[in-house]
Structure formats: structure tokens, C-alpha cells
């Protein structure tokens, strides 16, 4: 945690000098006034400087947003980010031109960015937050595709009476498949393999 103790003629001055030292702005810090100081007589005799302790608040969600913006900028893409904060989850919705470059084939670039942002947001903190990055509604479109795929392959498993394996997917995409098929009692689903090559297997009952 970054913090400094600063002194000044008044509390305001002390805070200002602390902000300069920390290279930040007032919105991002927490100020503890240790001593309000005294003007003294004629500003000379018996004067005491004001002392404050200023601590930079770790706004991890903001850091994640900043990280995404910088990475995109370096890739030559200007994006706007809409951040939705929930208790245990942060959703960054990206939009802009050339957003396809950030999604990549089957969302692999988006997933990589999501993982890296997750590391940035959860670095050096106690509680941890799930980070989700969406770009131009990609996640929802992908969910629809996955549900269709799940139903189609479930049919195939029933018709052939053989297990069908899907290709490796990240955990939340597998979850979509499991959820889509959980009420289908002609088949059962489980995941097989070791991350990052874990995949869903649909087994006829």
C-alpha cells in the first residue's frame, strides 16, 4: 500500500504536497489528519505544522479498466469500456471499431484478455472477484451457439448410443453446455481431461 505522511502550514497544503508526492488526485486517496496544526501568534510564535497521512486507495476495478484500455490502444484499437460492478463480479463491456481483433477465433483473444485482466484485478487483494469481459455482445451470441451445439450433439449421442466429446473449452463455456443439457434425462454430461484441454463429454443413458 502506498502512503505518505506530509506536513504543511495548513491541512490543505499538507494534503496537496502529499498528492504531489504520490502523483495522484484527491479522489483516489484516503486522508487521515494527524495534527491540524496551529497558526501561532502572528504566524510565527507557537505555530505548529499540520500533519496528514495520505493513503492511495487501491481501486482494482479501475486498474483493470485502465489495463484493458492501454492494451487495446497498443493494438491500435480505440475502445469504450462500460464497467458493471457487482459484489463478486466485474463485467467489462467493450465496444468500438475493429473489436473483432480483440475477440479472436472462437473468443480466444477475449478469453486471454479476460484471464490477464483477472490477474490484474485480483493481484495483492484479499477477496477475489470474477472478471468477465464481453465485446459487442459476443458472450451472449456464443452462449446461443453453444446451446444449439449442445442440443445437436445430444441428439447425435442418443441416435448413435455412443459418447460424444466436444472440443476443449474454458470452464464457463462448459458450464453453459452442462446447464443446457441438465434437464435432458436421455443423456448425462461430464467434463474430462485436464485444463486447459478439459472438454465436455455427452453420454447416452
Amino acid at each position: 500500500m502506498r502512503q505518505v505522511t506530509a506536513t504543511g502550514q495548513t491541512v490543505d497544503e499538507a494534503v496537496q504536497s502529499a498528492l504531489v508526492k504520490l502523483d495522484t488526485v484527491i479522489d483516489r486517496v484516503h486522508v487521515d489528519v494527524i495534527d491540524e496544526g496551529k497558526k501561532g501568534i502572528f504566524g510565527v510564535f507557537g505555530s505548529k505544522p499540520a500533519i496528514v497521512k495520505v493513503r492511495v486507495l487501491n481501486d482494482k476495478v479501475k486498474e483493470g479498466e485502465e489495463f484493458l484500455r492501454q492494451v487495446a490502444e497498443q493494438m491500435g484499437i480505440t475502445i469504450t469500456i462500460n464497467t458493471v460492478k457487482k459484489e463478486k463480479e466485474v463485467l467489462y463491456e467493450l465496444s468500438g471499431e475493429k473489436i473483432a481483433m480483440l475477440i479472436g477465433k472462437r473468443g480466444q483473444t477475449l478469453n486471454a484478455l479476460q484471464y490477464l485482466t483477472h490477474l490484474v484485478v485480483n493481484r495483492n487483494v484479499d477477496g477475489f472477484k470474477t472478471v468477465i469481459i464481453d465485446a459487442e455482445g459476443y458472450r451472449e451470441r456464443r452462449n446461443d451457439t453453444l446451446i444449439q451445439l449442445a442440443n445437436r450433439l445430444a441428439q447425435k449421442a442418443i441416435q448413435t448410443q455412443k459418447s460424444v466429446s466436444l472440443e476443449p473449452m474454458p470452464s464457463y463455456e462448459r458450464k453453459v453446455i452442462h446447464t443446457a443439457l441438465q434437464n435432458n434425462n436421455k443423456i448425462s454430461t461430464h467434463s474430462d481431461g485436464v485444463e486447459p484441454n478439459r472438454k465436455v463429454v455427452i453420454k447416452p443413458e
Partner: protein
Amino acid sequence: MKALIETIVRPLVDHPEAIVITEEENEYKIRYHLTVHENDVGKVIGKNGRIAKAIRTVVYAAGSDVNKKIYLDIM
């Protein structure tokens, strides 16, 4: 591209001042070589190379409009 790699790696490590990225280019490919402080190696590689893989994915995506194959070596 070097700046991109640094942007990605900087918030992941404890010693950002020790990040070194070098570049080697020939007719067909560009090879970037990333080194970090020895205590930070695990932070850029991750379990089973998961972080390294994610970094590469993003870097390769950024390099997709260059007509050369891009490689990223870590350490």
C-alpha cells in the same frame, strides 16, 4: 509491439523496472525476447504456462496485421 508486451507484463510483476524486451527480426519472422526479475518469472509464466499462453495469444492477435510470423520467448 514492445510497448504492448510491456503494458501487459508491467501490472503482473513486482519488479517492473527489471522488465527487458529485445527484438530480433529477419525476413520471415520477428522474435521478441522477454526477461523479468527472477522472482517474477512465475508471475509471467503461471501454472502450466497459462499466463504465458494468454500473453502470447494477445501479442499474436496484435501482430496479425503484420505479414511476418511473431514469436515471443519468455526468459
